[in-house]
């Protein structure tokens, strides 16, 4: 049984949904308060769930990167441990420099909350190994600062190393502009493919009765 550690900052609000998701997938889960300085032994995966850590003050994810627990998360990630950041968690991972680029205010300035189709761009990684390349997934998004920015040099690296995970698309898989992200990027990973970040919320797509169960395969890949 895999052990999943979920990081909780003041203002995190998707921790229990994410806990539910990994329990549904048969994992042991523990919610780790940001003041902790260590992760549980035998942690197989660290997840930074969505929400509004520190009220999004200064910039989304900016203050959380200096929480005590983040030192342990950075050491875990740099040691090759698997880390997933969802929404605000993605913002935290870019702020702390574990993932390249940055997330700006949405191009239309609105908070966008809806189901969104996503195209699987690369599945040569743990996270999306259970999804087919070019498959179209249906996953909710809910964010105001999801406008992914990276400079041209950084973008070329993402492309070359197959680090782009998913792009916002229409039902046929054609890229669409949702929030202004560079080439409609919705999620990326690091070069060594152990750190993952995405704006959409797979933990909100676990049951067809609630609209989609595509999130199960995404999250399931990480603990396979």
């Amino acid at each position, binding site marked *: 049984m895999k052990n999943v550690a979920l990081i909780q900052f003041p203002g995190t609000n998707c921790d229990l949904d994410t806990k539910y998701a990994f329990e549904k997938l048969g994992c042991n889960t523990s919610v780790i308060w940001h003041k902790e300085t260590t992760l549980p032994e035998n942690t197989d995966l660290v997840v930074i769930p969505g929400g509004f850590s520190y009220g999004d003050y200064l910039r989304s994810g900016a*203050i959380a990167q200096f929480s005590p627990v983040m030192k342990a998360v950075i050491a875990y990630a740099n040691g090759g441990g698997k880390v997933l950041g969802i929404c605000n968690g993605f913002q935290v991972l870019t702020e702390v420099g574990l993932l390249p680029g940055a997330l700006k205010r949405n191009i*239309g300035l609105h908070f966008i909350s809806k189901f969104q189709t996503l195209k699987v761009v690369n599945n040569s990684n743990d996270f999306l190994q259970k999804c087919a390349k070019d498959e179209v997934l249906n996953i909710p998004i809910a964010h105001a600062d999801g406008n992914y920015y990276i400079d041209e040099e950084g973008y070329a690296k993402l492309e070359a190393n197959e680090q782009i995970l998913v792009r916002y698309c229409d039902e046929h898989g054609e890229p669409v502009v949702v929030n202004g992200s560079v080439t409609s990027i919705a999620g990326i990973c690091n070069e060594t493919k152990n750190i993952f970040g995405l704006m959409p919320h797979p933990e909100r797509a676990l049951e067809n009765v609630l609209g989609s169960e595509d999130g199960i395969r995404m999250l399931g890949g990480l603990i396979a």
Partner: protein
Amino acid sequence: MKAIVNIFLKEGVLDPQGKAIHHALDAMNFEGVEDVRMGKQIILKLTSTNEADARKEVEKMAEDILANTVIEDYTIELV
């Protein structure tokens, strides 16, 4: 001594808030506005009396947390 830190999105990085303000100004018939950039200002009251030391310290603050240098530039003014 006070340090005034101004933070703006880098030139070339699209500023959605600046653009929205520009549109609003156009809609209000204010003419002659070529571009609008929106940023934030952080004012720090410092205990230091040495300007060089203070500038160095505030630069470190700006680099480490106040600005995200992937997308933002900053200026520091000591008064």
